[in-house]
């Protein structure tokens, strides 16, 4: 117990050890190969079809895990990562005299609106970042920025489904579900697809995180922020055995049902869900109490901030790292509720106040996450993705807001396999439309899968008479951002 004890990396605690040993069943072997089954999945029967004899990456992966930082509502590209001096010069002029203006959601097209924030160049690569993100700006040499994203939908719910599932309609599997279907999960006591609910569930609701036609085990588990991230994670029964007996009884009932109706994925998944919930009662508290986290680490993420939203998001970011360390395949962070009067990043009015509040809450935690991952060697096997569902207009909605713009937005990735310090794609002089190297959401999905070693054309699931893919019949790799 030297004076530097608090900077030591974590060691497995007694509680954690108990939690992990509750898993016990190693990994199931099948089809002559081996791999790790998805969380909660006892049978691999759905994988044992001719097209899916193999579970694991198709080719050598760059990343093992994904942390998806979802900027709900749509960050304005011209105010964050895509500076447009022309907006400043032509501030207040009529956009319709400059370029063709598409229909907007609220049909309240105002004047050209300059960015309220200045841009500065950062890092060795000199990437310009606005004053909204002074902390993320210090990480630009690890970031590959895409300025030429487009979406097919100008409205939140569809755009959210599209970004999460590759389809604008409700009901398809989310990309986190696909990754777990393709690669399995290494940890038997924590779900392989976790959504850390920062306070806001995106429009479209939980269907953004569902398994769709994939087996139920692949759906996301949503962890709330606060002292009890998973409902009823602390046993409600006073007597320990009582809970175990209850579970045993339920299992008996369910099993007898299966005996009557044959194999039923829903029932089998329910049984294994109960078992996992039981295991999670020891694995989750260990995970969410940051006992081994040093003060320096907490400070790095901004846990000492006066802003409760920043503190909240910081703890979500630390939790995301802890989940990745435990082999969780896909972690998504939703945004904190920075209200009142601010609806996510969706600033149809009051752009300055809204974007500033949101940016303040997420900027330092995200930078902290990147730096912490890097120093521990985790950024090498983790892909961090930062994106909204679309961008915003370069002209005002009303006087001080910006409307939805699916024709151009910026997103970035950092970590395993991406070329840090790159800027890919180009928008016009107003940042309104993509003019070079357009990247679709399907392209983004194909690229994320590629970095995980998955060929988006090979990872299929037969449903409705067709081999379904996350990228449907689309998707091209964005090769220029690959290291």
């Amino acid at each position: 117990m030297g004076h530097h004890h608090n900077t030591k990396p974590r060691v497995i605690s007694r509680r954690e050890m108990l939690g992990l040993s509750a898993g016990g069943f190693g990994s199931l072997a099948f089809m002559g190969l081996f791999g790790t089954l998805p969380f909660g999945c006892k049978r691999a029967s759905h994988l044992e079809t001719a097209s899916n004899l193999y579970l694991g990456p198709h080719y050598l992966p760059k990343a093992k895990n994904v942390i998806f930082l979802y900027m709900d509502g749509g960050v304005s590209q011209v105010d964050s990562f895509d500076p447009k001096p022309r907006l400043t010069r032509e501030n207040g002029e009529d956009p319709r005299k400059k370029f063709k203006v598409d229909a907007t959601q609220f049909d309240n097209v105002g004047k050209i609106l300059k960015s309220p924030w200045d841009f500065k160049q950062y890092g060795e690569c000199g990437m310009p970042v606005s004053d909204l993100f002074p902390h993320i700006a210090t990480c630009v040499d690890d970031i590959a920025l895409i300025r030429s994203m487009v979406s097919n939908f100008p409205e939140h719910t569809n755009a959210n489904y599209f970004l999460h599932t590759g389809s604008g309609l409700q009901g398809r599997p989310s990309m986190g579900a696909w990754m777990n279907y393709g690669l399995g999960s290494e940890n038997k006591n924590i779900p392989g697809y976790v959504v850390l609910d920062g306070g806001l569930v995106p429009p479209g609701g939980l269907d953004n995180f569902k398994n769709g036609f994939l087996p139920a085990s692949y759906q996301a588990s949503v962890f709330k922020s606060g002292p009890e991230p998973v409902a009823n994670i602390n046993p409600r029964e006073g007597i320990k055995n009582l809970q175990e007996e209850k579970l045993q009884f339920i299992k008996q009932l369910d099993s007898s049902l299966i005996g009557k109706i044959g194999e039923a994925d829903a029932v089998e998944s329910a049984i294994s869900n109960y078992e996992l919930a039981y295991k999670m009662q020891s694995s989750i508290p260990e995970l969410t109490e940051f006992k081994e986290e040093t003060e320096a680490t907490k400070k790095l993420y901004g846990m000492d901030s006066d802003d409760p939203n920043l503190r909240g998001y910081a703890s979500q970011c630390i939790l995301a790292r802890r989940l990745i360390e435990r082999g969780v395949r896909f972690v998504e962070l939703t945004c904190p509720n920075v209200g009142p009067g601010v609806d996510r990043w969706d600033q149809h009015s009051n752009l300055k106040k809204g974007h500033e509040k949101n940016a303040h809450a997420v900027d330092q935690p995200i930078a902290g996450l990147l730096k912490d991952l890097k120093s521990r060697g985790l950024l090498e096997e983790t892909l961090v993705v930062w994106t909204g569902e679309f961008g915003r207009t370069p002209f005002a909605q009303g006087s001080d807001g910006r409307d939805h713009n699916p024709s151009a937005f910026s997103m970035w990735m950092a970590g395993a396999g991406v070329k840090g310090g790159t800027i890919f794609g180009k928008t016009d002089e107003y940042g309104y439309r993509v003019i070079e190297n357009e990247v679709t959401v399907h392209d983004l999905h194909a690229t994320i899968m590629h970095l995980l070693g998955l060929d988006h054309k090979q990872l299929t699931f037969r449903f409705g008479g067709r081999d379904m893919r996350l990228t449907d019949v689309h998707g091209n790799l964005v090769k220029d951002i690959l290291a």
Partner: protein
Amino acid sequence: MGFVLLMIGGILDNPPDILLFLGRFHPVVVHLPIGFLIMAILIQMASRWPKYKPLAIYTPLAWFMGAVSAVVAVIFGYFLSLSGDYDEDTLFYHQWAGIAVMFLSFGCYFINKKWNNSLSVPKWILVFLIGFLLMYTGHLGGNLTHGSTYLWQYAPNPVRNMAGLPSKMEPRKKVAVLDSADVFLDLVLPMMQSKCVSCHNEGKKKGGLMLTSYEMMMLGGESDNTIVPGDALKSELVRRITLPMEHDDFMPSEGKLPLTDQEVVLIKWWIKMGAPSSGFVTQLDTEKSLSSLVSNYLGLDKNNLFNNKIPPPDRAVVDSLISRGFVINPLMKDNYFLDANYSLSEYTLKASDIDVLLGLKEHLVWLNLGNSKVKDAYLEKIGLLHNLVKLDLKGNEITDAGLKSLSQLENLESLNLYGTKVSKGILELVPQLTKLKKIYLWQTEVKKETIIQLEKENPGLTIIYERE
């Protein structure tokens, strides 16, 4: 008869396709007179012996069949020559020697048939003349098809010299390192030699183009834009090799082996760089955008671990490791490289676990033993896992004493020592790990001055030793 056709044919400046089509049968048909005439010569000679005397009655027939088939061969040969793709001088001699063979064969037929016993001397002169002309014509035909150097290409040097050719050039040494690869001599020229020169040589200048040397390539053929230095897309050569295969202009034509995608990329790049006559690939390719492609093309990446096919792992070893707390993951679909992870295990790592790990010596490329209570003594065995590319040892109480054992990990690219007790020992270890790209040293006992020295001694190595 042949003459008549020749006369008619002479007017045909624009030969109809059907003639060209028949012309392509010349190489097949021509072997009939060759066979018959050689047979005739042999019968002629053999029948001098009493034993083979009875054969004599077949001599006129053999000569007749040789002569008639020679007519067909001559006609088809003429059709073939109408395409105008052949070296004129050689063609002239080949054509007239062939026609001579045809007439002389008829002559021999008549001599044998009518004056069998009276014209013995002229007959034998004729027989040997035909024999000689047959070989001469055939040789010229070979030159027309394959190029005049074809026959002598592999001949011993004295034979080559007798044929008036220089001694064989020392074959260019196979490129051993990428830095010594020459863009023309090692990439473009060998490509031409294997895929193009069989039709574009001194003897058979299809389209007036020769692709046997740099000078000839730049001289071009009938089109004056064969190679436009600096502009691959304007170069006829690039257009021809990138057309759809069923296109009339596609090269190589006639179903010969087309250029591979790699070769097309390389040719385009060579032309884009100004089509230099020589120059090191690595110096021209300043952005290193082609290094991996060129390495692959020249077969230099064989020492890239992942290009080796390895056998499936022993099932029992994998099962044993899983039961001991390892998570074992495949890393690619068409090969058996594996990732082993102990960092999530509920057990404590034992020396015997490492022994079992050695059973996957060839397969393990990623190994995560983070926070697994690895001891210095274990590293001795871990150091034998020579295919490791990534090794994660973070959070273990290991010291410089253990590090020494890792010096044989020749494939290691990433070494995570975050939160260990290592210190100055890394200075000795790192230079031995020739492929190392990244090392993590945050929260170790490595001092700042050691880091500075490490950075200085190992440029290009990414050292992560602090959390900014």
